[in-house]
């Protein structure tokens, strides 16, 4: 082995995103706590529960990489669940058009977010905060505080149904298939197309990107639309998983941002990856699950949870400083 090879190895080692190590460590800890986790029902249930957050975070990372935030996703989830229950009106035949309407609403919300940020020059933090409050109000107005219908079984298929009696893996929740499909789509769009490169460029330096011929506004608006659409998908999965409730989406916007940061996305834009963000979301869910299994009292859990998050991000920043990536 030459000296040169050692140097290369040393350089390459830290280039693997630390989120994967943290995730692996957490999974080992969960298995030590609860050996049943290695059974398919254990880890499949875990993935099923993490799927909505993973999809949401994978959408959020588009906005973060482009140099913004999308705080409106949590209330968009609420609006999707509450609105779907109102529109479905217990009629299974309505499932498809209701889902289509929800994605339509998603495009609208993302478009408005993007237009406000690009043309009214409102910072994305404020624009989407305003959107968050507005959507919450709309969901409340629509339902009067008590949604008037159930989500039909066909609507809940995506978030709730498991294929059982499969060879090898025994069960496969539909939510995991949805995660794989949407996750791959978002990965491809971000890392294999020109759009992804332009999103990175405008997050890194919007002026330089503009001078280089990137249609900054159009790209930024598309990023917001992707984020909103992923929120709609998340809403459909969450509604499917747990049924109607009026505060289903609350807090999800911050969890999604946290997941993206855990995955190494830079909060000021220009850097971030879809697979690492999904790993970040899994990490966050693993923390929640582990703390559940440990059975610690609530306040201690919150302290631990907060410390782990800060530590994880500190590791990511440290790594970036020392590797320049």
């Amino acid at each position, binding site marked *: 082995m030459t000296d040169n090879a050692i140097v290369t190895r040393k350089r390459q080692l830290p280039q693997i995103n630390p989120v994967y190590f943290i995730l692996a460590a957490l999974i080992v800890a969960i298995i030590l706590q609860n050996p049943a986790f290695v059974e398919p029902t254990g880890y499949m249930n875990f993935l099923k529960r993490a799927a909505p957050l993973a999809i949401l975070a994978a959408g959020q990372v588009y906005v973060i990489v482009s140099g913004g935030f999308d705080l409106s996703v949590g209330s968009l989830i609420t609006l999707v669940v509450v609105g779907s229950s109102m529109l479905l009106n217990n009629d299974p035949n309505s499932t498809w058009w209701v889902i289509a309407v929800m994605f339509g609403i998603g495009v609208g919300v993302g478009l408005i977010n993007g237009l406000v940020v690009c043309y009214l020059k409102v910072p994305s933090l404020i624009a989407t905060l305003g959107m968050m409050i507005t959507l919450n109000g709309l969901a409340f107005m629509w339902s009067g505080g*008590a*949604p008037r219908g*159930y989500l039909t079984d066909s609507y809940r298929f995506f978030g709730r149904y498991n294929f059982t009696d499969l060879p090898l893996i025994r069960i496969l929740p539909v939510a995991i298939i949805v995660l794989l499909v949407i996750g791959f789509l978002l990965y491809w769009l971000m890392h294999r197309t020109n759009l992804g490169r332009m999103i990175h460029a405008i997050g890194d330096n919007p002026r330089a990107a503009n001078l280089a011929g990137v249609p900054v506004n159009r790209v930024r608006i598309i990023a917001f639309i992707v984020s909103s659409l992923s929120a709609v998908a998340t809403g459909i999965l969450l509604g499917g998983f*747990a049924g109607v409730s009026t505060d289903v989406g609350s807090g999800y916007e911050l969890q999604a941002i946290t997941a993206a940061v855990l995955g190494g996305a830079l909060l000021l834009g220009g850097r971030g990856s879809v697979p690492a963000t999904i790993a970040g979301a899994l990490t966050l869910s693993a923390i929640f699950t582990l703390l559940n299994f440990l059975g610690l009292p609530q306040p201690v859990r919150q*302290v631990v949870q907060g*410390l782990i998050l800060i530590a994880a991000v500190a590791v990511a920043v440290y790594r970036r400083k020392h590797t320049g990536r």
Partner: protein
Amino acid sequence: MKNILAMAVVAGLALTGGTFAQAPNFDDPAEFARQKEFLAATPMGPEGKPWEQYLVDTMKDTTGFKKDAPYTVCFSNAGVNNPWRVVGWTNMQEEAKLHPEISQIIHVDAEGSDDKQIADIDDLLAGGKCSILIVSPNTTAALTPAVEKACAVLPVIVFDRGVNTDCPVTFIHPVGGYGFGIQGAEFIAENVKPGGNVLMLRILPGVDVLETRYSGGKRVLEEAGLNIVGAEFTDGDNAKTKSIVEDYLQRGKIDAVWMDAGATAVAAVEAFEDGGYDMPVFVGEDQQDFLQKWKELGLTAIAPAYPSYQWRTPIIAAIHTLKGEAVPSPEWILPQPAITQATLDSYINTAMPPLHYALCGCEGMPNYPAAWGGK
């Protein structure tokens, strides 16, 4: 780094210690015994109208408050921020329509904020239009001075949550948190053998009516020799509830689930259903979705309630007071029935919204079911 960690751990323990230190306030054996007695007591007042009934018959003379109709009833509401309060507020509006003496009901919604509610009460007093003031306080201690200030100007009726003063004409509430906790836990004790595993699900910490539900329920379960495998906060979130139950199911058998608020009961039931587990004994609440699930799956279950019919009573009390008729006081304690297998069918109504509370006492009112969102 080590120091920071140590400090954080200390801070965490201090917080936990704080929670434990407060706990005794919500575990009062005398109040537990009193509420247990109320559950078995026969109510006074008109039969079949629990919102007009009372469990203690000390009356207050209100001739000093007598006024001529028409009346303007002012209502400072803590909020309409959950389905229970939505049902309750509808009850109150419909009750007011039954009394031609009431010309107007002025409603101010504090949106769950103490500050706003204190300001709201000031505004109502300054407006000078109110014949009487009804208050559903957001929190007990914060609203006490505002209620005292109002008492000096006009008759005040408090309901739902209390304040630390007896200046109001009366304080209307059902039996209370201990009673709710006892009803569910006693049902579990009757249906699960000693040593059985019980999972307790709580909505959030620190609210008196919820803390007493928990301490009451816990006491009964422990005395029955049941094994409490965990007490978890769900934040009223369906997805979180379902996740917690799934995690517990992976760790071992659960024979019963006790809840301090049943809005997430269906999500907990689904965790058993989706995982193919045997259905445990269940404690829910009087929400339609749970009652329907109970019947559909043939659960062994009970639904204690914090009846939303109590929202009708303040209007009735206001009319009595303004006419100078005696009202139960200082507390107007309403009966607090639980829905059991025997009464389940009479409370199920698939035409009502899933989050409708069945013990609304509203079935006989003129605008039922449309005003409550039913078909």
